């Protein structure tokens, strides 16, 4: 009786661990998914497109989404729309042999339909930190059948990244940076935790000026003053959301901060700054140099 009981207990234990292992395996399964035929790929997500081009496999792409704007060759591919606003028929219309999509592509209904077809759909995870960049390069390389080149690219990126991070992590007095997504109608839309902007600010050896906010949120003017950033960080490529520099500094809340008083504004290309792809290491370097000047470049 006792034996049977413990046998069952063991089995439960085994089951529990296998569930744990299983979920871990499925997590890595998405990372190690390999497309059986990678000759016609649809890339959904700017970072994925950049990685594929960086691996020298740009010729395998047959379509991209509207966030894939780098390198220039990507712009010549048919655009299947915004990554969160996909049309399943549009994606299928280019006769892909595989779809590589960033986590968070949607809408959910479209993704569900795409998964129903026999075209393999590989989801690439999106983590906005150092490990995430490397993991993404490896996952994309694995999927398109170029694991060796991906390994090389990943280790090169990793080497450069650790070099930059060694410098930025040595910074004692961290600058406070406020990433402003848009200033529409005088309302400041800024990046909180769990955003690509937050990730890049931290990698560059600075701190996000706002705390306790998740995602991109509209800030009250007083919260902006309270955050008192040393620098404002914005995207150059923001289209109609963008405000001119004067307009930004004319905002009373911004004007009341250190960044406003000293006119500290850094503008960088959106895909470059927030893509978390192969170019991110350069973006981190550029950002930290613009934040700290000579102190960073030893």
């Amino acid at each position, binding site marked *: 009786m006792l034996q049977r009981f413990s046998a069952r207990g063991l089995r439960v234990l085994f089951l529990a661990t296998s569930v744990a292992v299983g979920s871990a395996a499925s997590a890595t399964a998405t990372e190690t998914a390999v497309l059986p035929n990678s000759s016609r790929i649809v890339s959904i997500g700017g970072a994925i497109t950049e990685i594929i081009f960086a691996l020298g496999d740009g010729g395998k792409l047959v379509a991209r989404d509207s966030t894939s704007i780098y390198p220039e060759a990507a712009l010549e591919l048919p655009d299947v*729309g915004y990554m969160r606003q996909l*049309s399943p*028929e*549009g994606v*299928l*219309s280019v006769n892909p042999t595989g779809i590589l999509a960033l986590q968070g592509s949607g809408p*959910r*209904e479209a993704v569900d339909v795409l998964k129903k077809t*026999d075209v393999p759909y590989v989801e690439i995870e999106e983590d906005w930190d150092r490990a995430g960049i490397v993991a993404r390069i490896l996952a994309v390389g694995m999927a398109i059948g170029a694991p060796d080149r991906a390994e090389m690219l990943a280790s090169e990126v990793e080497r450069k990244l650790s070099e930059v991070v060694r410098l930025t992590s040595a910074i004692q007095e961290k600058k406070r940076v406020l990433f402003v997504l848009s200033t529409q109608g005088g309302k400041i839309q800024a990046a909180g935790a769990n955003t690509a902007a937050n990730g890049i600010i931290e990698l560059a050896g600075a701190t996000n000026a706002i705390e306790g906010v998740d995602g991109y949120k509209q800030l009250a003017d007083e919260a902006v003053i309270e955050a008192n950033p040393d620098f404002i960080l914005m995207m150059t490529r923001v289209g109609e959301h963008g405000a001119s520099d004067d307009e930004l500094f004319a905002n009373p809340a911004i004007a009341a901060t250190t960044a406003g008083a000293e006119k500290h504004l850094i503008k960088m290309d959106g895909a470059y700054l927030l893509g978390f792809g192969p170019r991110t290491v350069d973006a981190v370097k550029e950002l930290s140099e613009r934040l700290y000047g000579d102190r960073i470049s030893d």
Partner: protein
Amino acid sequence: MVSDTHSISGSVMRGRSHGDRSPIARLVILLLALGVVVTAALSLTAGAADASAYAVLRHWVFGGSAAGPLSLRDQVIIQDIRLPRILMGILVGSGLAISGAVLQGLFRNPLADPGLVGVSAGAGLGAVSIIVLGGTSLAPVVAVLGIYALPLFAFIGSLIVTLILYRVATRQGRTSIATMLLAGIALSALAMALTGVLVFVADDRQLRDLTFWQLGSLAGATWPKVAASSPIILLGIVAAPFMARGLNALALGEATAAHLGVPVQRLKHVTIVMVSAVVGACVAISGGIGFVGIVVPHLLRLFIGPDNRYLLPASALLGAIMLMAADAVSRTIVAPAELPIGIVTAAVGAPFFLWILLRRRGVIDL
């Protein structure tokens, strides 16, 4: 609408008189029914991909082996993308158009439109509550109702707005046009404000669902959604023609309608519930697609007159055609991407409507 009153009273008294447009109306309905079938068939073959609808149809009819090989891709495109979308276009288009026509009859006012008087905004608030709070405070509701939670809450939202609207705008059996529009604007604003609060507390994933939904689109068409909403919308479409005679009488005023033997109070209650349910279901699956509810009935009034016996079914048919056609355009015009359908309906419909108004100025007289 002076000349139209004549034909209304004519139809109420069941007599044929000068200006009776019944023969034309019957012909128009017949043509529109034909138009629905043709548009549906054309929509099934139109799309970004070159999937053969014919091959898939043959597969359904003759079964797997006899019809030859069929790629899973084509099958999914026809069966899981285009077909539910076409059905949803028919349901939502006819539902919104018929709701517009019924509301206009109920309020005796050609400006009544679900989008204009806040009924859609109320439905939107209900739907957004489920999307945002479905995981937390409304989780028990979702657990019980499943996929019906969204259309049901949209229905409750539109019902509340319609009831308040009617209460505010109607006094002693008379509905004030100005009060109705102003109340509608106020209720819209209130519903939008509450929706705004929910949008603010929504997390990233919910926001993605919301923006998609707020744009108004048939892109989210799936079989479960069609299944969840079709009973409500179909019930409304089937029920509406039974209200036609009553609505015709109502055009003469509530007192006259009552004297003609129309159970006015019951008619009002039934139409309010019907419109709320149908608009709620439409908004729940397709978001806020405006314009259909006001343009379709007006276009038809120009040709077949205001007799609700013909206007209501004709509105349903023309609404279905319009939305299917607009969706076909939105699916193909920027392929492989997709244009939101609201842009198509407004960009094509509004100038056309203005042109009609210009040409036949004075026909629609507020």
